[in-house]
């Protein structure tokens, strides 16, 4: 019997569930467990993690048995760049202000695309920064600092 992955989709989905289960247990291991009668903060997450690992194993094992879909190529560059762009925006809006945060978000997101046209990006930065400022800061008066000094 050969161990060939027949359904990549099931296999990777299973691994993902196992990963989340392990992560949940690792983070929850510092929380007091308690008992089934008096559950501590760690009781629920730990057991859900265990269930996730079990279910994930079954799903991953099914990937060896049944035919299924193939997983396409991962688009690593856009995925990583977009995640960084959103995270950077979250950090920047509190630390270096709304306007620079918008610029960082737009430029990083544009870099994730297939083509990077400098003129288009500059135009989009201008339009979106002014538009977002007019809408969120001026009209709705959301309390975000415009620059880093206030």
């Amino acid at each position, binding site marked *: 019997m050969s161990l060939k992955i027949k359904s990549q989709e*099931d296999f990777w*989905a299973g691994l993902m*569930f196992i990963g*989340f289960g392990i992560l*949940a247990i690792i*983070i*929850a291991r510092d*929380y*007091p467990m308690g008992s089934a009668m008096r*559950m*501590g*903060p760690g009781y*629920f*997450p730990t057991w*859900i*993690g265990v*269930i*996730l690992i079990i*279910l*994930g194993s*079954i*799903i991953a094992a*099914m990937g060896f048995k049944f035919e299924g879909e193939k997983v*396409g*190529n991962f*688009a690593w560059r*856009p*995925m990583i760049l*977009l995640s960084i762009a959103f995270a950077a925006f979250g950090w920047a809006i509190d630390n270096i202000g709304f306007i620079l945060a918008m610029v960082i978000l*737009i430029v990083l*997101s*544009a870099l*994730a*695309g*297939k*083509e990077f046209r400098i003129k288009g990006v500059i135009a*989009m930065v201008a339009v*979106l920064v002014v538009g977002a400022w007019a*809408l969120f800061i001026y009209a*709705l*008066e*959301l309390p975000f600092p415009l620059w880093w000094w206030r």
Partner: protein
Amino acid sequence: MEFFAEYFPNLTLGFATAVSPVNLLYCFAGVFVGTLVGVLPGIGPLAAIAMLLPATFNLPPVGALIMLAGIYYGCQYGGSTTAILVKLPGESASVVTCMDGHEMAKKGRAGPALAIAAVGSFIAGTVGTILIAVAGPPIAEMALKFGAPEYFSLMCMGLIASAVLAHGNMLKAIAMIFLGLIFGIVGTDVNSGMSRFTFGASGLADGLSFVVVAMGLFGFGEILANLERGQDKATREML
């Protein structure tokens, strides 16, 4: 007709107040602004009302209430616009609109989809208001009797229903529900007050808000699905 004797005078009083021209104007202004704000993804009715509350300070109490109600309904409807056009639910109620509405928009029928959402919003609002007016008192009485067993049963039913309704692999649906439970644990533990899975960030102490999860799931999912197809169109649409 004890029923009518109780409800009819109250309803006529309410309509007489609401139909006066000044109040209708407040209502229109509220709905207009509410829809404008509701279109912004991520700003639901609650946030909109909180932001626009100062605008009603100078109005008489009845007018202010009417305007706030208008903002609420306008916001609820406005959320469906982004849900249909770019598959970003503006607030929790328009998550479902995303699924069918965006499919219609993809086939070039965004106009009809928006119209259906508007008509549906009107009918649901009208019927819902009548139902609340008629059935409010008895339901409120019942809701007060809800205790731990009832909430537990309700939650169990919800979890089982979501496993049954999900199409595709049953096992994956159940695993996803447990994954969802993990995300639901994020925040302060109700029983002990201990914060779990917050990584020391105080912003997570309240847990993940449903709107954030829905937007991340639908908006980000849409981007990732487009990446798989090798297009960067969605990124631009998203921005």
